[in-house]
C-alpha cells in the first residue's frame, strides 16, 4: 500500500506538473502498482460474481424462459404459452396442498428449532469445562449428510418396525401412522430438520452472544439482575440482528425443503396421498415423473417469489420489533449510568 501514495500525490519539488503527466513518467513497476491498486479489488471479487452469474443468474433467467413455454422434459421446447403455466399451477389443488404442507413443516421445524437453539447457545455461553467439546458436539448432526439423516429417521419413524412404534407399543399406546397421516408425517420430517439444524443455529447465536460485552452483564449483575433477567434484558435484545439472520435463513431453507420428505418415503413424491409433498417435491413430480418442464419452471418461479415475500415479511416484522424496542431501552433510567460507565471503561 505504501507505494500508492507516491502516485496520487504530486511530488513537492515539481508542483506545476499535472498528475496526468506525472503518470506517464512512471516506471513500469509503478504502473503495475497503480493497476494493482485500481483493478485488483475487482479481481478479488470477480470469481464470486462470475460464478454467481453462471450458477445463479443464468439458471434463474433460463427458468423464467422455460416457464413461458409448453416445455416437455424429454421433447424440449414447445409453443409459447405466456403465463398459462403459472395460472395452471396456481389453480392446481396439489400446489396448494404442497404449499400448506411446506408452511406446516416449516412452522413445526423453525419455531422449536430457534427456541432450542437460543437456550442451547445461552447454556454454552456460560463458563463450562471443555467448552470446545460441547460446542463441537452440538454441531455433529450438521456434518451428517441429510440423505443419511433422512434414511435413519425414516427407519426410526417406521410405522410398523421403528423404535418409536416400539416405544408406543411398550406403553400400550395406539400406533401412529407416521407415513400415512398428515400431521404425524410433518412432525417426523420436522424432527429431521430440527435434529440437523438446531446445533448449527445454536453456534451462530452463540457467536452473537459471545460478542456482547461482558461488562454489560457485570453491571446488570451489580444491579441485582439475576441470570434469567439478564438473559431477557441483555442477551435477547443484543442478539436480535443475528436472530433475524437466522430466522431469514431458516425461512429460505424451510420453504425449499426437499431431501427429508423425498426420502421419508422414497418410492413416492411426498406420500402416497401427498400427505407430506412440499412445494419442491411438487416441482420435482411435475418435472420428472410427469415431464411437464414448463409448469415445473413456473412452480420454481412462484416459489422464488414466495421466498422473496417471506423475506420481506421477516424484514418488516424485524423492523417493527426494533422500533418498538427503543423505548424499553430508554425507560430503565437506573440502568443507564452503568451502561455509560462501562462504555467509558476505567476512566470514571
Amino acid at each position, binding site marked *: *500500500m505504501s*507505494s*500508492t501514495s507516491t502516485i496520487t500525490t504530486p511530488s513537492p519539488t515539481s508542483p506545476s506538473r499535472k498528475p496526468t503527466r506525472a503518470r506517464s513518467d512512471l516506471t513500469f*513497476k509503478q504502473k*503495475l*502498482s497503480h*493497476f*494493482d*491498486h485500481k*483493478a*485488483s479489488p475487482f*479481481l*478479488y471479487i*470477480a*470469481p464470486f460474481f*462470475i*460464478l454467481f452469474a*453462471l450458477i445463479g443468474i443464468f439458471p434463474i433467467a433460463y427458468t423464467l424462459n422455460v416457464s413461458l413455454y409448453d416445455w416437455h*422434459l*424429454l*421433447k424440449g421446447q414447445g409453443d409459447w404459452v405466456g403465463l398459462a403455466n403459472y395460472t395452471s399451477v396456481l389453480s*392446481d*389443488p*396439489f400446489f396448494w396442498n404442497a404449499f400448506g404442507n411446506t408452511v406446516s413443516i416449516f412452522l413445526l421445524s423453525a419455531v422449536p428449532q430457534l427456541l432450542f437453539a437460543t437456550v442451547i447457545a445461552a447454556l454454552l455461553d456460560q463458563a463450562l469445562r471443555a467448552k470446545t467439546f460441547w460446542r463441537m458436539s452440538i454441531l455433529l448432526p450438521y456434518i451428517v449428510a441429510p440423505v443419511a439423516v433422512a434414511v435413519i429417521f425414516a427407519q426410526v419413524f417406521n410405522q*410398523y*418396525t421403528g423404535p418409536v412404534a416400539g416405544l408406543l407399543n411398550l406403553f400400550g399406546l395406539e400406533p401412529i*401412522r407416521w*407415513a*400415512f397421516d398428515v400431521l404425524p408425517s410433518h412432525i417426523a420430517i420436522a424432527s429431521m430438520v430440527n435434529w440437523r439444524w438446531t446445533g448449527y443455529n445454536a453456534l451462530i447465536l452463540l457467536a452473537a452472544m459471545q460478542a456482547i460485552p461482558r461488562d454489560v452483564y457485570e453491571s446488570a449483575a451489580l444491579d441485582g439482575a439475576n441470570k434469567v433477567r439478564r438473559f431477557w434484558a441483555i442477551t435477547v435484545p443484543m442478539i436480535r440482528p443475528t436472530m433475524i439472520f437466522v430466522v431469514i435463513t431458516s425461512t429460505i431453507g424451510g420453504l425449499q425443503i426437499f431431501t427429508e420428505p423425498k426420502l421419508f*418415503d*422414497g*418410492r*413416492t413424491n411426498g406420500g*402416497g*396421498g*401427498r400427505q407430506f409433498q412440499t412445494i419442491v417435491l411438487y416441482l420435482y413430480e411435475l418435472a*420428472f*415423473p*410427469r*415431464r411437464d*418442464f414448463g409448469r415445473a419452471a413456473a412452480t420454481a418461479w412462484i416459489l422464488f417469489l414466495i421466498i422473496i415475500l417471506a423475506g420481506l415479511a421477516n424484514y418488516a416484522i424485524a423492523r417493527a420489533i426494533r422500533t418498538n424496542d427503543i423505548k424499553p431501552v430508554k425507560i430503565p433510567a437506573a440502568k443507564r449510568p452503568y451502561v455509560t460507565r462501562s462504555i467509558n471503561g476505567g476512566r470514571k
Partner: protein
Amino acid sequence: MSSRRAITASIAGAAVFAIVATGCSASAGGSDDGKITLSVTTFGTMGVDANYTKYMEENPNIVIEATNLEGGGAARDDAYAKIAAGTGLSDVVAIEEGWLGTIQEVSGSFVDLRDYGIEDVADEWLDWKYKQGTDADGRVIGAGLDIGPQGLCYRGDLFEAAGLPSERTEVAEYFGGDDATWERFYEVGAEYVAASDKAFYHSPRFFWNSFVNQQEEGYYKSDGETLNIEGNDVLKDQLALVVEAENAGLGAGLPGWDVGPQAKAGDYATYMCPSWMLGIVQGYYDEGTTDSGWDFADVLPGGAANWGGAFLGVSESSEHKEEAAALALWLAAPAQQAASFELAGPFPSTIEGQALVADSTNEFFNNAPVGEIFRARSEGVIAQVKGPEDSNIQDNVFGPVFDRIGQGEITDGDVAWDEAMVLLDQLVG
C-alpha cells in the same frame, strides 16, 4: 508486494475457473492402460449382475461399472433427467416396460440396435417382446431381458396351519387351477382369515396391477394413446371387489413395498409374483434362507398375463457405442438371461433362455420348479399396450386410493372409484 498480490489474485481467479471448467467436463470412459470402461444402470433385482464378471474375464479390455437403483421409479426419473440434460446416461441403460413408451417418444436418445446386429438374432426373442423394443419408425432401441408371467407366492406353512392345502399343485387346484377367478381368490382369502385370524395379503395394490394387466386393454386402448378408464365397468367392478375383500379383513394394510419384517412375522400369506418379484420376496430374508415357508404355485386368478419386464438400451451419448451394444446384446442373450434367472428370478424373454431354465428350481421357494411354472404361466401371453402415463396412473391415480382402502379409510367401492377419477382428472385429464 503489490504486484505479488496482483499475481496471487490472477492465480486465484484462474484456479476458480479451472475448477469450474473441470467440473463441467464429463469423465466418460476412462481409458488408462487401454481399457474401456462401460457403465451399466439397472434397477431392482434384475439379476443382470450375475454376468458381469464373466464378461470382463472374456473381454479383458472392458471394465463394467455397474449401478443398481432401488426401484423402477428411481430408474425412470434418473433416465428422464439425463435424457433431458442430453448427457450423463450410462452406456447401457435398463428400461422398464411401464415407461418404455415414454422413452420411445424420444427414441433418438438411444442407438438403433439394428446397426449392431440385433436383427441377426431377432428370432431368439418372443415375437411380442422384440416388437415392444421397436419404436414407431422401426428402430430397435431395447434388447428384451425378462418378461413378467405371474404365479402366486404363498406361505405353505401358514396355509397348512390354517387348514388349507399347502402342497403347490393342490394349492393351484384349490384356487381353481386354469379356471381360477378373482372371486375364488378372495373366497379362499376369507377362509384363511377366518381360520388364522391373520391377513391374507399385505396390500391390494399388486393384485390390482395384475388384474389390470390381464385385460386386453388396460389403462389405455390398444392404440396406446386413448385413455380407457372413465366409464370402464370392468375396472370399477374389480375395485368394488377389492374394497369388499378389505372390509372383510383380508388385507394387512401395509405399503406395497419393503414389507420384509412383516413377512418374517407371518403377517400375510400371499404375494403376487411376476417373475421379477421372486427376487424381491427373497430379498426380504437373509441370504441363503430356505426355511421361510414361501412356496410358489402355478396359478393366477383371472388367467395368465404379463406384468412388467425390462429392456437394455444403449445411449446415443455413449462414447463406446459399439462396445456398449456388444455388451447389451450379450447380457440379453439366452445364456445370460438364464444366469440372471438363476440368481434373481426374472424369466427369460428368449425361447432358448426359457429352455435353458426349464428344469430350474428355486431353493428359497421350497424348491419349486420355477422354470416350468413360469413357462406354463407365460403360455399364450402377450403384453398389453402401455400408454405414456401408464406408470403415473398406476402409482398416483390408483396407488393413493389403495393406500386409503388398505387403511380402512374407504369402505365403499363407488367412493373409491370416484376418488380415483378425481385424481385421474387432476393428473392426466
